[in-house]
């Protein structure tokens, strides 16, 4: 099977087979062609060459409808939802139950709701059919995606990076679901960057590199090291080398902060925390517990309802982004494509987003294009941003390089405090290594780093101190050697009764 996008060969003569009742993992770096291969299978793209067989018969899959008819279901890497519609509507969309005997296809909403509930009960996926997609957590959305495939009686289920956005606990639960599906005879393709879970759940592994298949191996006998070598083509160091922290004076102090979310509900309810110079403080928590609002309040994007934020003693509460900026806060946004970058802007223009108001980038309100070019020249090479020159639009970069671009800009502003919100989301192993290295560098340079992450792995390996946020409050503080389980309990609100930790 070969797929070309103009000059880009996304899949180069890839052979891939899937057996009934197996979990087949697909591994590869960012841009290796995993999603493309699956999209071809699901009829979103048509193959440039090659063919697909289902149950031994050659088939043509020209559209998702064909794929659905063949019993193929897909959970997309980027969720495919209608955010303003309810869960039930999203699930039934495309094969809706209608009132029988009446013309015009009048929706039978009762039946839809009931069928969805039945299905979710069968697999132990608790969902509320009437909730709107945009109002539920990412983990819930993930479940809805799976349900949707099941609703269509999928025999072949493609899961494209389903765990990237889940918490440890949710991942465990997902694994259970996958095993149950497998027992039912469903064949599953499982794409992930997390080698551990691949080894845990998969039967066989196929590795793609630059669009080519590097071969298929059984999971039994493979190790994380051996898989990583196949993916990247070299050895990867998993443990981070870092010195013990030598924290200094507190830089950021947040006390009793209350912040409303977009719907006017209180998302942060009295958070208190501090970050000192020379330490990485990680904020761990399940998505949707007020992290976003907290970060936005600290970085000046969102106006807090009450409380106090100071940087080096200067009060910046509710003073806006510019105040936070001049107080020395840099911000690696969680959504690089929407918040971190202006995609149609050139790389140079994007790099100037933080400093454009001051010389040398501008004087008296007028820009200095030469200074922009110079800045870009310096940063692009220093941070090894590949995929385009200073004049190329940021949209043309791959996700990893876009992230490097953001990091370059923020670190170059020479901040006192670096707020990194999910800085490695969706990145491959190599890129993660790079980002982590930079964060530690900053810490060692005496800066404060506030890391907000959903991945306990990342939290534990990077942080000097771990804070757990739950329902808008900091409920626990752990040293870096806390166990996954301790963290997990605290993150789901059990910290206070667990009694093993001190509430912050």
């Amino acid at each position: 099977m070969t797929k070309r996008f103009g000059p880009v060969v996304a899949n180069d003569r890839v052979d891939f087979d899937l057996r009934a009742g197996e979990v087949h993992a697909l591994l590869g770096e960012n841009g290796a062609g995993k999603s493309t291969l699956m999209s071809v299978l699901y009829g979103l793209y048509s193959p440039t060459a090659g063919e697909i067989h289902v149950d031994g018969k050659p088939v043509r899959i020209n559209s998702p409808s064909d794929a659905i008819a063949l019993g193929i279901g897909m959970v997309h890497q980027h969720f495919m939802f209608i955010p303003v519609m309810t869960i039930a509507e999203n699930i039934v969309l495309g094969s809706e139950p209608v009132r029988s005997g009446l013309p015009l296809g009048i929706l039978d909403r009762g039946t839809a709701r009931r069928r969805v509930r039945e299905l979710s009960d069968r697999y132990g996926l608790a969902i509320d059919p009437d909730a709107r997609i945009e109002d539920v957590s990412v983990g819930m959305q993930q479940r809805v995606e799976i349900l949707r495939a099941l609703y269509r009686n999928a025999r072949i289920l493609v899961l494209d990076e389903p765990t990237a956005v889940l918490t440890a606990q949710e991942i465990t639960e997902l694994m259970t679901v996958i095993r149950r599906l497998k027992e039912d005879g469903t064949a599953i393709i499982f794409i992930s960057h997390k080698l551990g879970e691949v080894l845990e759940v998969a039967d066989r592994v196929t590795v793609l590199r630059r669009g080519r298949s590097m071969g298929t191996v059984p999971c039994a006998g493979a190790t994380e090291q051996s898989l990583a070598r196949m993916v990247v083509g070299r050895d990867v160091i998993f443990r981070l080398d870092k010195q013990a922290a030598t924290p200094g004076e507190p830089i950021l102090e947040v006390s009793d902060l209350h912040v409303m979310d977009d719907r006017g509900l209180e998302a942060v309810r009295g958070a208190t925390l501090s970050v000192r110079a020379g330490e990485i403080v990680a904020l761990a928590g399940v998505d949707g517990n007020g992290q976003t609002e907290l970060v936005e309040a600290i970085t000046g994007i969102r106006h807090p309802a009450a409380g106090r934020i100071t940087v080096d003693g200067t009060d910046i509460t509710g003073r806006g982004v510019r105040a936070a900026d001049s107080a020395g806060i840099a911000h690696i946004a969680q959504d690089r494509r929407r918040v971190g970058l202006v995609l149609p802007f050139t790389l140079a223009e994007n790099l100037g987003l933080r400093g454009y108001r001051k010389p040398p980038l501008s004087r008296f309100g007028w820009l200095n294009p030469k200074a922009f070019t110079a800045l870009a020249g310096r940063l692009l090479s220093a941070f090894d941003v590949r995929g385009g020159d200073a004049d190329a639009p940021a949209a043309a970069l791959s996700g990893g390089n876009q992230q490097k671009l953001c990091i370059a800009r923020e670190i170059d502003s020479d901040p006192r405090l670096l707020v990194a919100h999910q800085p490695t989301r969706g990145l491959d192993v190599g890129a993660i290594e790079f980002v982590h290295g930079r964060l530690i560098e900053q810490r060692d340079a005496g800066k404060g780093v506030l890391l907000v992450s959903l991945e306990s792995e990342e939290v534990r390996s990077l942080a000097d101190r771990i804070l757990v946020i739950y329902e808008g409050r900091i409920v626990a503080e752990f040293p870096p050697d806390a166990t996954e389980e301790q963290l997990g309990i605290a993150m789901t609100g059990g910290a206070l009764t667990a009694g093993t930790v001190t509430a912050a």
Partner: protein
Amino acid sequence: MTVTATPSTVRSPAIPIQRIGLGATVLAGIAWILTLPPIMVRTAVPSIVLGIVAAALGTAVLRDPKHRRLGGLAVGLGLIAIPLALAMANQSAANVREVFTWSAVIASGLTFTTPLIFGALGGIISERSGVVNIGLEGMMLMGCYFGIFGADVCHSWLLGIVIGAAAGGLLGLVHAYFSLHLRANQVVSGTAINLLAVGLTGYFFIAQYGDNGTPGTLPQVPNVSVPLLNHIAFVGPAIGAGTNVLTWVGLLLVPVVWWFLFRTRAGLRLRAIGEQPLAASTVGLKVIATRYVAVTVSGMLAAVGGVYLSDGFDGSFNFDMTDGRGFIALAAVIFGKWNPVGALGATILFGFSSALAYRLQTFSQTLGTLFQALPYVLTLIAVAGLIGRSRAPAAAGIPYVKE
């Protein structure tokens, strides 16, 4: 698996504040109508008192950031009530009665509202499918000309409607082709449609009817009197007697379109495609085909609004006779938050205040000109005060590219 924890949704105890705001708004409303028929209090004092109270309460509400809009509305309504009441109390009772003959206001308001309803419904269907339709004005104008032309050539108003709708649908098809197949910028394409329609209708009009204009003996879309309604007081004179067939059709279409959008399979799919075409296509929906149908229907609906103008109401065609009504319909779409019922509200507000504006000349000929701005001012106030941010279908305006 447990439900993921989300921040609990308990609100701060703000309900009384909201009540106060609503109460203030109601008081302001009373202050408005006290001096008007049928109550006709001949002194401004009660209205002024109520207006001040409403404004004061509104100011209090304003301080709560969550209810700013409500407070602002109460303050605005309360303050405007005062000069209104003063003006009314100073006018002779006969004049006031003459201007605010509600049944007559409703009757002529409906004539303004009717083409807007069709246009707005068309706009809603197109935009709900994810295609921005700035070209409503042009499609309506096509209906104006070809409705007349059809009625003239076929000697039948019914065929006039059909031909008018077909012409609008054709223009819709052009818009669809450019937006969907050629991935045009939809605003640009719509703007072009508007220019094109003025030119085309003008060209055909001159070529066909020359200097004399459309004949005066066309079969016109008839008015119907509803037998029962006719005899009910107040309603009778307003809508019972001689309301155009197309007005009834338009009013009827509002719930029909609503029901279609929110209660049928096709409507659900249409909305899905307008929100997230990619997601919709992954469950096997036909994005392009659906949008084609939607935009074409949109053009047809707008054109029927045009037919009402020309062959229903005027009985003749004139250059560019829509005179911006398509844009008002577009505004009604947004005002109504892409919901047929909301849009109806918007067109009614607009139509009735237009009708009132003409009657206000009775008070002052000179100011009469200024009163013509009333519907626009009211719409602006209503949108700012009541609607605020409105969210378009997420994919509206974005070309859909399928690999």
